[in-house]
């Protein structure tokens, strides 16, 4: 092997090594920071892990919003019309949060099966349904009919 080839081989090895380290670190960071989505039925079946952050989504059950009279703590139920999960959240809910609206909550499951949410997301379009929620509803066979106006888009 002549000197030039040797130099090239070293360069290639360095690049391969550098790239693998970068990919490894990225994969590690990724695996630490992904949040899996679970529907209320899956949570009810006990399929959701208790010790990591998860996302859960569904429709907010009518009449289920209970507020603490002295703080910003609020509890509500989300459902895929098969099962429901109680979500607890302290803070300001998004503008479009309301009963019957599809939302996604991010947080950890408590031992009693309630989701202690650190974030509640409702999208800024009144006809918008988070795709995860839409799919969870479709799987439970409970997809509500889309409102007329939504078809224009």
């Amino acid at each position: 092997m002549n000197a030039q080839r040797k130099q090239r081989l070293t360069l290639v090895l360095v690049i391969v090594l550098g790239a693998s380290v970068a990919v490894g670190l990225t994969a590690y960071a990724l695996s630490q920071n992904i949040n899996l989505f679970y529907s209320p039925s899956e949570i009810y079946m006990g399929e959701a892990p208790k010790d990591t952050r998860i996302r859960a989504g569904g429709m907010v059950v009518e009449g289920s919003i209970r507020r603490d009279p002295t703080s910003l703590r609020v509890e509500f139920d989300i459902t895929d019309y098969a099962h429901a999960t109680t979500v607890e959240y302290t803070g300001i809910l998004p503008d479009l949060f309301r009963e019957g609206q599809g939302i996604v909550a991010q947080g950890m499951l408590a031992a009693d099966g309630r989701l202690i949410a650190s974030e509640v997301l409702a999208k800024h379009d009144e006809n918008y349904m988070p795709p995860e929620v839409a799919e969870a509803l479709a799987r439970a066979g409970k997809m509500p009919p889309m409102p007329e106006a939504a078809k224009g888009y």
Partner: protein
Amino acid sequence: MIPELGTFSTILALCLAVILSVVPMVGAYTGNKLWVDYARPLSKGVFFFLSIAMVCLAYAFLTNDFSVVYVANGSNTALPWYFKISAIWGGHEGSLLLWVWIQAVWTLAVAVKSRNLPLDIIGRVLSVMGMITAAFLLFILFTSSPFERFLPGYPMEGADLNPLLQDFGLIVHPPTLYMGYVGLSVAFSFAIAALLSGRLDAAWARWSRPWTNVAWAFLSLGIGLGSWWAYYELGWGGWWFWDPVENASLMPWLVATALIHSLAVTEKRGVFKSWTVLLAISAFCLSLLGTFLVRSGVLTSVHAFATDPERGLFILGMLIFVIGGSLLLYAIRAGSVKSESTFSLSSRESLLLVNNILLTVSCAMVLIGTLYPLVMDALNLGKISVGPPYFNALFVPIMSLMIVFMGIAAVSRWKNTEPSYLVKQLWLPAVLAILAGVISSYAYSGILEFWVTLGLTLAYWIVFSWMRDYWNRARNRDSLWAAVTKQSRSYYGMLLAHLGVAVLVVGVAMVSIFVEHRDARMVAGDQLEFRDYTFIFDGVRKVEGPNYTSDMGRIRVLYKGEPYRIMYPEKRIYTARGMSMTEVALDPGLFRDLYIAMGEELDNGAWAIRLQYKPFVRWLWLGALLMTAGGILSASDKRYRRQNNRAVAAA
């Protein structure tokens, strides 16, 4: 009648764009000068007819023509006229029309501003731009025409523009961002033309530099405006969410930043040629990918309104065609490209290579984080989301490392720079930066917070190392006046842009670490204190707006016990859609913002209220503004014109 005229002129523009993408290209190959000469008038024609289409759509909005589906879905008689105009790009169809109109603007600009380029090159460049225009026009006409009608019956009143979009931000953010996105097609077209002609030389880099700088400047400004808009409009005071749609604009920006640096090396030294071409291709492909991500509805995002698989499929097809085609061309041609000079391991070239590697790596990392959930979903491996911690964990170290190199590159020289020279030049800026960073971090907060100290040190490092470079250049001049005026505009542009990075870094570090917020339940008379400020809630009253009703809160703010000002956050209900919106009350300042947003009404007249103290948040957008100014200033350097002339004289 008018909307049909719009469709008609869109079709005419398509016909001209198709001719533009064929005739000059064939002319350039066969050496038919007459055919190549068609490129300029055809570019003007495309621009003319697309402008007519834009005016037609604006007319439909201004006259409340609700027989047009797009107008009925995105406007309302009560909407003020300036929002009616900007509602043109408030939805999917119109924003595509804006996209292609801006493409026509860039094509026109290239046609008019490039009198000095060889004719066969300009013919090829305009042809490639014509192809892009034609593809997007096909997309508009087949899947998403904004001129489609409701027939026979149509609504008497429009559904109104999404209240979130009824804001100054909508007027400025999308056009600026698109100017940047689409402007990258110029660099792309120059690269493709150079590959096709086989003349990939320093002259090519010189032609495409000013265009790339301007596109990059607009992209920076567009992203900055988007961040500023999200900050005050969404009501929770964030300025960057690592939302997929934000990432879609950040990725082309990162690659475009690498591109403007790589172009500099190619122009000055004749090396990195094939790499530069690859960057130019990637930058535009990423902006197409961004369009695909935003417009196909595959994402869960604040921007993802339209969900129509057919549209996504069309853009995906176009994306595959553009990426595949240009990479194939690259694979065939790039092998024959030869470097014109060599450089040593310790030189400005190497340092700029490091800059390029770090920027592309960070872009790849953002790309992985953005596409990973889509891939997992497509493979049925579960629905996941990738959170901000992932992006922060990788992006912050890479960028910190890059800033270290940014300072070293400032004083380095082309071809070869002795490491001992770098040490001699930089030990003082380095020591000063660390001292200043530690002192100002401690002076601000009374503690040495790691990330803030690091951020401030890096910002000082940028400033001091570039000051060193400026001093090197200025010291040989006779007088201070000569030293200041004899530097070129492109040099001052570079200084401004790098200063912008320093300002941005200060903003990011300070606001990320020292932001303070309180979410409180308040009834009239309640008060809350933090950071020398006292906030007294005086209650809420009803206010009527043109197309909304509002609960307007009144909050008195005391600074160190003295009355400071009164702030009025609002909770609005937009009547047409019955949609509620938070209208934030802001007290902006160079060193801190006070930010008050109202949540929902609780029982017994209590309101949920969010109070935030955001130090140095304005510096984020100030940094983006400085970068924009820097990009434009350096593109306006007269040497680009002068050297173009010289190139012609030599030919």
